[in-house]
């Protein structure tokens, strides 16, 4: 009967590896510059996979070889200092081999390249808005205390940089392929996380702080935005789209966006009309 147990553990080790190889579920095709993240994950798969198979098969071997026999001679050896030392050193080398690619990815991740286009992502329960700098290339200052129905981003009315900012009040962002982007992440209520699986990158958005990450979109197409930090009952439905496109399409889209100034003007007219109507 013991043999079934040996087979069970062999099957678990072999099955794990087979599942890994045959799984149809795998990375989504990469659409950003973060191939280094994928590579670090693959290196980790190789190293940990090797350890798993080695220890797993050794376990199976022991189970098969040392099944209970009445008069088996069992080794009595409480310690083996040199073996233990070797194992410590080997493990330490393995850890360093894994740490190196991981830390190097992080080092790139937190260093935004100069000249990256800035995009503000504003999150709320439960949706996404965006803000792009206008001609001047600079985003205007904001404060949560400035937020009103007429000024949904809380822009500072006295900051000239803000006047031409383009407000995308829709969960639909367009990006130009090949251009570095720095996301400035803001939340007006609770934690959220701006995540697009194809880009690999993510970061929490924390009310009261501006967090960031950067990447370069490398493949045109339409990708889904997912919220990756629990933010209340609407969390699972807090979706949106990012469209990565060539320069010409991108300029067209950009031309259709309205600036803060235009919105203020529209609101003025609207408010006037409401006032008139009320009279």
């Amino acid at each position, binding site marked *: 009967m013991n043999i079934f147990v040996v087979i069970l553990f062999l099957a678990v080790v072999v099955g794990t590896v087979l*599942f890994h190889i045959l799984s149809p579920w795998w990375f989504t095709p990469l659409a950003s510059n973060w191939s280094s993240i994928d590579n670090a994950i693959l290196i*980790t798969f190789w190293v940990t996979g090797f350890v798993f198979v080695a220890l797993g098969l050794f376990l199976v071997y022991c189970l098969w070889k040392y099944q209970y026999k009445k008069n088996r001679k069992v080794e009595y050896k409480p310690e083996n200092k040199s073996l233990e030392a070797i194992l410590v050193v080997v493990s330490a080398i393995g850890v360093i081999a894994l740490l190196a690619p991981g830390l190097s990815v992080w080092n790139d991740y*937190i260093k935004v390249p100069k000249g990256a286009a800035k995009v503000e992502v504003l999150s709320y329960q439960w949706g996404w808005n965006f803000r792009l700098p206008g001609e001047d290339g600079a985003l205007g200052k904001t404060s949560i205390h400035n937020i009103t129905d007429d000024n949904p981003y809380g822009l500072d009315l006295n900051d000239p940089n803000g006047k031409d900012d383009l407000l995308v009040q829709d969960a639909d962002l367009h990006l130009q392929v090949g251009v570095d982007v720095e996301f400035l992440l803001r939340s007006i209520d609770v934690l959220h996380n701006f995540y697009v699986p194809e880009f690999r990158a*993510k970061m929490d958005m924390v*009310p009261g702080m501006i967090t960031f990450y950067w990447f370069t979109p490398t493949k045109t197409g339409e990708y889904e935005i997912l919220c*990756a930090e*629990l933010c209340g009952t609407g969390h699972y439905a807090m979706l949106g789209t990012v469209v990565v496109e060539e320069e010409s399409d991108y300029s067209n889209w950009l031309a259709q966006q309205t600036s803060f100034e235009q919105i203020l003007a529209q609101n003025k007219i609207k408010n006037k009309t409401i006032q008139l109507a009320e009279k």
Partner: protein
Amino acid sequence: MPEGDGYDYKIEAKAYTASSSGASVSPAESPDQELYHSKSWWTTYVFSQDAKYIGIQYFCAATAIAVLGLVLSVLMRVQLAYPGLNVLDPSTYYQAITMHGMIMVIFFLTALFLGGFGNFLIPLMCGARDMVFPYVNMMSFWIFLLSLLVLVASYLVPGGPTGAGWTLYPPQVITAGTPGNLWGLVLMLVSIVLFVVGFTMGGLNYVITVLQARTRGMTLMRMPLSVWGIFVATIIALLAFPALLVGGLMLLLDTVLGTSFYMPAIIATSNFGNEVSTEGGSPLLFQHLFWFFGHPEVYIVALPAFGIVSDLISVHARRNIFGYRMMVWAIIAIAALSFIVWAHHMYIAGFTPWFGFFFASTTLMIAIPTGIKMYNWLLTLWRGNIRFTVPMLFALAFFITFLNGGLTGMFMGNVGTDIALSDTYFVVAHFHFTIGIAPVLVVFGAVYHWFPLATGRMLDEGLGKIHFWITFVGAYMIYFPMHYQGLQGVPRRYFEMYNSSQASSSGLNEFITIVTIVVALSQLIFFYNIINSARAGKKAKKNPWDANSLEWQTPEMPPKHGNWGRTLPVVYRWPYDFNVPGASKDYIPQNVSPSQVRGAKAERT
């Protein structure tokens, strides 16, 4: 104890010196003490002060709440795979993950390992008559029970339990877009506070009993690894729970009095677009406090499991644990490191980027002592004489599960790889392997192993094996595929499972849910086995597994109040003298003196 006691141990000590062969047993420094004996039915069976009995009470209460945790997980899985059935809505789903997570980690596993196994095993394995403060120990259980009642009561208050996830992150936990953001949250926090108070009473007992009440000859380096694991885990818990306590108390103030410890100025759409009148608080502060507790917490669960599984493997493989001293140092090293890694749960929480380097390095360093434990378990099996008993089967299942879960920790703990995998199903798979399934497998192994000591009867082996196969194979099939959903980018904590356009996982979701139902139902076999065997199981012979540790050496089985009858045992060796060359049997219990086994060439321990 009767007056004769002092006389008894003098004789033993003398008998020992005469045959001294290296190991030393110092004479008792203080005389044995009389225990409080219960006088009524109530104080014997309900308000018991006997650690063994309190351990069993803890075990039963923790298991009962785990059943609720399990039912919630089945409901969640049904919702994810069969959304059309509408068994849950978003609010109840998020309440279910919160209650499930909290229950499983704190109220089930922490209470079970420390309160349950700690109470049952520490005095018996150390050769003590009871815990050092039996009355406080009793209080510990009743406060724990009260905390459970408060927790469950949150299903009865307006709004139901909190649905903010077991991490209770503000501001979300307080704002109106989350269910149970007032009463549910208050009850959750009160329940946690009670738990910490109750645990501290028990925890002081476990630590002091280990330090003060060991019998003669039981040096620290002769303690079974089960005791080491529980002892060190308790120390971690005594240091880590205060962070949760203060974190929770400030959250309570933010909730009830509207203070701003964690609340910045926000405009909650769910509060009908009104600005919430808070200002200047830091959501990250809570995360730091929570994880300063939360990371050590996983070792509070893991270390007792490590310890117990070491003993199960050694006893059932009939071989000394390999590298005992390294095993002890590994436990201590893991415990120390566990306090400087907490922010690996916050790589993408928006903290200072430079933290990433530090916390990734410390986190991966833990792999070294953990690796040592894995190797040493294997080297214990190697050249052993393995009995495939039910406890051994569960120990082996633990090994492979924890091996897998520990290795996926290398993905999560490393900051660069975590960016892509954090907050996806990869995390769900990883932590269920390591702190969900693996420790529970050890619990099962431990129950099959020590049931005879608690009841005097054996659990049915056939049913045990069926239970083992379904639970182990099933649990592995539930969680292993989830890693790959995570790789695909499926986020965790989604009421509707996200279906990537790249490769649909709807068939997989249904498969996982069906296996979950089978595994959950198979636990009935286990409960049936326990109830039936406690009444009518095969009578256990004394020391049924031929183990060495002291708990099997009590004059009666199950042991009576006071454990040791007239005289305390004296310990001459470590608990791992299996198959010592020259010995007539394949095991030498700890209280067998060298003169009784003259031919045996045991190493000095």
